[in-house]
């Protein structure tokens, strides 16, 4: 996790390296002038000299301006490389790290043109749990065909981790997978090489909007499966189009369960039309259960 240590102030890096297990750390939240928080084993703590604490009085207090320092380090002091993603609220860093950024938006004629005065950052670390989607991969296969599947969970419950492993298993099983890695989180391609294992038969398109990937992928890469993270309402027509082209789509979306998904106006249509054959609901920590639903209307 050299990439993480390069981002954060040395004293935080030293404590994390010495006192914590990086495998169990999933988030580091830094707000200027506030105690530094970490998500460790799915539970939030404050970061302090001795490691973790629930007592905010002994926690490290982030200096004002530390969010800006982290943003500048995250983009290697080259803001122009991340202007587009910054406007969408994040920066992708090598190793699959995603830095969520809050600051003040600069608007021009109703359009967000830049983000300035960075206030806080949320550094999210990727986790590779090989084999976590083993059973799921079998359940999503029927008569040799992969079912259109939507994986649901609240934020930080492991959607991306399970999607990555599912991608690896299906790809290593000989399926041609097109992975849409819009935020460089799933495969984390750096210099043309994925830094996380997504399987040997996976084509990865990184940093491109889903609609564009669906368009390019269907036309040029003849995939059997398209996998993508964080589906939004605007992407649904493209999912429909792919599924009518005989391509299975496996995607994720933010919702606690199917009822919550149905209650969202923009998703209710997709549930009713039955584009997805299966819904996988992940519960967050500590239980981390995986439930598969089929034939939901």
């Amino acid at each position, binding site marked *: 996790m050299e990439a993480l240590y390069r981002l954060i102030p040395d004293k935080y890096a030293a404590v994390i390296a010495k006192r914590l297990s990086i495998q169990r750390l999933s988030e580091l939240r830094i707000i200027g002038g506030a105690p530094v928080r970490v998500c460790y084993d799915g539970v939030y703590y404050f970061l302090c000299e001795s490691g973790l604490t629930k007592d905010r009085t002994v926690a490290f207090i982030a200096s004002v301006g530390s969010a800006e320092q982290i943003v500048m380090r995250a983009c*290697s*002091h*080259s803001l*122009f490389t991340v*202007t587009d993603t910054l406007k969408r609220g994040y920066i992708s860093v090598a190793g699959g790290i995603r830095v969520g950024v809050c600051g003040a938006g600069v608007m021009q004629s109703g359009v967000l043109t*830049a983000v300035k005065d960075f206030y806080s950052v949320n550094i999210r670390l990727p986790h590779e749990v090989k084999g976590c989607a083993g059973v799921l991969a079998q359940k999503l296969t029927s008569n040799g065909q992969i079912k259109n599947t939507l994986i649901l969970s609240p934020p930080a419950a492991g959607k991306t981790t399970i999607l990555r492993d599912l991608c690896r298993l299906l790809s290593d099983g000989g399926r041609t997978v097109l992975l849409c890695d819009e935020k460089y989180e799933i495969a984390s391609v750096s210099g043309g090489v994925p830094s996380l294992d997504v399987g040997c038969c996976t084509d990865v398109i990184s940093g491109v909007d889903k609609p564009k990937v669906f368009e390019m992928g269907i036309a040029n890469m003849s995939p059997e499966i398209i996998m993508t993270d964080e589906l939004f309402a605007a992407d649904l027509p493209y999912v429909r189009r792919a599924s009518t082209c005989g391509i299975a789509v496996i995607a994720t979306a933010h919702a606690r369960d199917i009822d919550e998904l149905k209650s969202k106006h923009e998703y209710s249509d997709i549930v009713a039309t039955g584009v997805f054959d299966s819904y996988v609901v992940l519960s967050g920590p500590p239980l981390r259960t995986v439930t598969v639903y089929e034939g939901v209307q």
Partner: protein
Amino acid sequence: MSVKLFILFLCVAAGTFCGYMILLSYKKNYSYLDGVCGMISALKQNLSYKKDAVSVVLSSLKVGSAQLQKNIKEYIGFVGGQSEGHAISRGFLPQTTYDGITDLFEAIGGSDESSQNARLDALSLRFEKLRADAEQKYKSMGAVAVKLGFLIGLGVGVLVL
């Protein structure tokens, strides 16, 4: 007689050497500025297509000037978090060149693509003018310095004898 000739030779050699050193100093400045112009051009080229981070572009750049190499290393060290300050060493650089290079390293990477392009265009103009002046100095005054050094050495030698 041979001692006298030897002393004369020493004086001429010393004078020519001084002139040559002046020529080298003009050349070093020109070579530095030529490297900076090449660097700006590489940054602009990269910005129009690949949009790599500045440190990535600079680390793959081949520059002839040792001072510029040193300055690039200092910048990459700062960006990589290996050094705290943004200090760029001055070395032999004249004040105008040093001010320009400090402005350049402070400006690159701190804005979006269009502002970056505009800033690089402005800096490119500034450095091209400095390079043209340095080239002119190197070519005309450098040669004059060598010739003058030779003549002064000869004169001093004659006077000594």
